[in-house]
């Protein structure tokens, strides 16, 4: 069946991509209206993509429970959590799903404030512990490069904390020594490297977009 083949999607990509490329150079109000229409379409489709993400995860946990794969017991909690939030969200303090509530904390907010925020915030902070243990165990100055990396890291870490100003005052008589050293590292070697990297990446991004436009790159459509 012709519709199944890649030809039409690739034509859409090429035509729409070319229009999207050209409209940037056209100041005419028509180009602005075309851009407004296309971006609002993308926005609407984006809503369905969010739904897709949620569905695939639920599907994954359902299969995990159905197949009793390792740790399936814990997947039950995914449904408990999701069910709690969806029921509370739809019940919406008795106003039903279509009303928005202004001000006041509902059970829906309670779930967010007391489950999502603490868990989300804590997981990242565990990294501080891992970093300290890795600092002692794995961060080795194996070669010149790694040594430079660690030296720059120590200077920057010290310079960006207030204690460096008090130490600077005791040792060098001026509190600005370490912060100025850190600024020098950031403004010169760091700027040079980050600018070089950014130019390299951007050339890669442009050539990637071009390959997508001309259908050279089509893995995102799922090869058949």
């Amino acid at each position, binding site marked *: 069946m012709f519709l199944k083949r890649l030809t039409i999607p690739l034509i859409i990509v090429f035509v729409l991509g070319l229009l999207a*490329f050209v409209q*940037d*150079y*056209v*100041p*005419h*109000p*028509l180009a*602005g209206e075309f851009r407004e229409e296309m971006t609002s379409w993308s926005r609407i489709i984006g809503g369905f993509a969010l739904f*897709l*993400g*949620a*569905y*695939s*995860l639920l599907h*994954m946990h359902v299969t995990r429970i159905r197949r009793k*794969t*390792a*740790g399936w017991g814990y997947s039950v909690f995914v449904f408990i959590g999701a069910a709690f939030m969806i029921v509370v969200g739809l019940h919406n303090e008795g106003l039903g799903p279509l009303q928005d509530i202004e001000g006041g904390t509902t059970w829906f907010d309670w779930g967010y404030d007391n489950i999502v925020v603490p868990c*989300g915030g804590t*997981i*990242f902070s*565990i*990294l501080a512990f*891992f*970093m300290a*243990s*890795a600092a002692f165990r*794995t*961060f*080795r100055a194996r070669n010149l*490069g*790694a040594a430079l*990396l*660690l030296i720059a*890291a120590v200077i920057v870490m010290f310079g960006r904390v207030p204690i460096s100003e008090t130490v600077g005052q005791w040792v060098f008589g001026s509190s600005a020594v370490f912060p100025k050293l850190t600024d020098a590292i950031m403004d010169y070697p760091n700027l040079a490297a*980050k600018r070089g*990297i950014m*130019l*390299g*990446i951007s*050339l*890669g*991004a*442009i*050539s*990637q977009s*071009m*390959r997508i436009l*001309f259908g*050279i*790159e089509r*893995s*995102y459509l*799922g*090869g058949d």
Partner: protein
Amino acid sequence: MLRAWSLVAVIALPGATQAAPASHPVSAAASSAPASGAVISAPTVPDPASFKAMDKPSDDGSAMRVEWARPAREAEGIAYVVEIAESPNDFKSGKFKSKVVKPSPPDEGDLYRTDISPASDKFFPPPESPPLTAERLKELAAEKVITGGELARAQAIMESMQRAQSKPGDQSRPAAESKPGTQSSPGSASEPSAELPREDKDWFGRLREYVHNRDWLKSFATAENRALTDGQLSRALAALESEYRERNTAGDRAEQDWLHRLMAFLKEKDQSEQKDRIAAINSRTWYVRLAVMKGDKKFYVGEGGQPAIRSARAKANYFNWAKLNNLLFSLIFCAIVFAFIEVAKRRRNLFLRKIAGLEAVDEAIGRSTEMDRPVFFVHGLGGMGDLATIASVNILARVARRTAEHDSRVRVMNVDPIVTAVSQEVVQQAYTEAGRPDAYNPDDVSLVASDQFSYVAAVSGIMVREQPGAIFLLGSFYAESLLLAETGASTGAIQIAGTDAYTQLPFFITTCDYTLIGEELYAASAYLSREPRLLGSLRGQDVGKAFLMIVMIVGSLVLTVAAVFGANLDWLRRIFSAN
């Protein structure tokens, strides 16, 4: 270019009295009686031949451009005044607006250029709704829209406002100074004065908004603008009144909700109509005159005894010339990459330098299969549109091919449903191409979590339980990179990492055996797969890098030397300015 210096008949016209409403703040003070006593020597006036008006290039048709050359001896303390009117005879009747342009320092070139957008509120904006007046209040009372009591209260408030405004020293701002919105809201400039009790101020603001909304809704049921049927209009007016009278039974609230949705829809229509009104005004032919103002006398640039009048029409342009450098760079660079891809299709052995990390890929898979341990492949958090993820999917194809040949398992764990689907297809294809379709187990390529950190905990848990021999961390990573890399290091597996997320590279560099830095990840998929489109684009990108390097070296040296010797090569640098 020797400017022809023609003896200009200097026409000293008494300052045109300003008939236009004094509402626009820029106009030079109307000059009163001719200057007292002291005769002001006539300043030199720009050459009429250089005085031109035209459509502003590269714009959306909202502005016209007026140009004139700097006169030979520009007098001190003068200012240029551009006057704009709808037709030549409007100048005589004084119906024009003006824009003052201060003289610029000599070294900024000798061509003055100013852009005028006729429909902007400094010149001829589309008509705004009239403010609330006493007669309007009486009409409303007659139509029973407001009660007698409300009429009296409103009049009392209006009088106290007049008294407050006429008090000396109270510089109440001119009425039309609020931003060009079509609706004057209670918070806008014509605010009742301070000492009115706050409660009266709020009440009067709500009344004014109520009246304004009524007229605004009615404007959609007139002959030429039929957006609302009579039934809808009366329903809307009823809802508006119920909201103004703050009646909130369930029925009222539903009606008021319907009203708000209606007003939102009409507001959108109103906005697009306003855009058309502005475009219509801008696209008319406008006439301009130029004068040099010294003190408060104007000396017009004249031709044959009369002030010179130029005319122009603002048109929407189809190409923004300021972006020419952007267009050329994009087209030429894309053409180069496209050409190299074609070349790479014919010459597969296009040279590509050795990438240390990749040499170890086969070695890692080999060692892992010797120890009879699975190979782990972690995509990171990127979606299918992410460059690093697409590159890592390409590398996954090769890794899966190798594990299939070594009769071993590759376990792919990721967080994005679409990447999971694509990876499943890629691994399945690799196993079938290696002639072992049965060895492919779909559950090996699975989506293990939905959220970044539950993903890390899941992957770390699986790593510790299944003790892999080789771990590939390729794709886009965020803060969880250290957790993965450290757990991997503790299981003793060979770790090869690669990401374009530069904030995570320090951790990969200090914990993994090999790290592909940024673009090397893209080069890796090209190096491995020898795929013409990747090889070609890498070579094309190298040409782009070479160009950037040359421009940077030559550009900064030349500009530095020029600056040392005082030559102004700013035009050279502006070639690369993005605007």
